[in-house]
């Protein structure tokens, strides 16, 4: 059976915007966070814990983790779309990537809240 070439999934714009928005957010957060680190009285575990006990650091840190995961999802998915041709293998890789990133996000939340 000849399989027709099918295109027209009608998505892509949202991911394209989100990829750029998350990149900008991560760049800004990294800058602000670097300044916060430089402002610490000492580089110790207690100072680090105190920094992360602030609600805003946890909130924006959590947003950073989500941004990183979404950004990575789009980037890695693009690599699978570019280079992996068999649809079954591609779908499997998409699912592995998705669950791996979801797992990382959950792990990051646990670390952030435990601090």
């Amino acid at each position, binding site marked *: 059976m000849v399989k027709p070439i099918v*295109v027209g*999934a*009608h*998505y*892509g*714009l949202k991911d394209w*915007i989100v990829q750029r928005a998350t990149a900008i957010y991560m760049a800004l957060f990294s800058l602000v966070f670097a300044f916060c680190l430089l402002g610490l009285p000492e580089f110790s575990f207690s100072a680090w814990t105190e920094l992360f006990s602030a609600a805003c650091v946890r909130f924006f840190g959590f947003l950073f983790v989500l941004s990183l995961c979404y950004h990575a999802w789009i980037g890695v998915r693009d690599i699978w779309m*570019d280079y992996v041709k068999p649809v079954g293998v591609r779908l499997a890789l998409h699912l592995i990537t998705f669950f791996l990133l979801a797992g990382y996000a959950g792990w990051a939340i646990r670390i952030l809240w435990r601090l």
Partner: protein
Amino acid sequence: MSKRTVQFKIYRYDPDKDEAPYMQDIEVELDPHDVKLLDALVKIKAKDDSLSFRRSCREGVCGSDAMNVNGTNALACLTDVDSLAQPIVLRPLPGLPVIRDLIVDMTQFFKQYHSIKPYLINDEPPPERERLQTPEEREELNGLYECILCACCSTACPSFWWNPDKFVGPSGLLNAYRFIADTRDRATNERLDNLEDPYRLFRCHTIMSCVHVCPKSLNPTRAIGKIKDLMVRRAV
């Protein structure tokens, strides 16, 4: 300019005779009036008529003689032979099936071009004489309508190499924007719908190889950016 001898390394493949492609070393003596790469190729063909390549207008208008010259896609008729490092390595355009020597099968390239409906769509009754544009509206088409479909850009694009059946490619997208930007066209929404797809448009990762190689100095990346800009404006 005096007579000089120029060294070439040319990709040869005749599927009727050759098991596999090979590179042939060729030396040719050029006359003072042989300025362009195409002049040299015509001279080589006069000595060995089995060498196959496409050419027609020999002045950068028909887009037939696009090939890979020392690793960069270019038109043989616009490339100064003396500006090239020797031996001059000539290969067919990358990413398309080779028919013979420097001739590639452009079917996939033109399929993508036709998929963007490269003609004005306007069902309104035509006026008595013509559909007029203001000079400003006409200005929008500059840098778009000049595309000669030589395929230098699309065959320099890795996204087109990986997905030539799904990604429209820089040339097709430049031409898509040429009709989107045309104020006489009435199918902007349909055209944007046709392109809003993870493969057809969003395989472009803005590496700008297309801009680097375009022999007409056009900028497909900018056109692609404008299509995305319109999609954002439509959606937000």
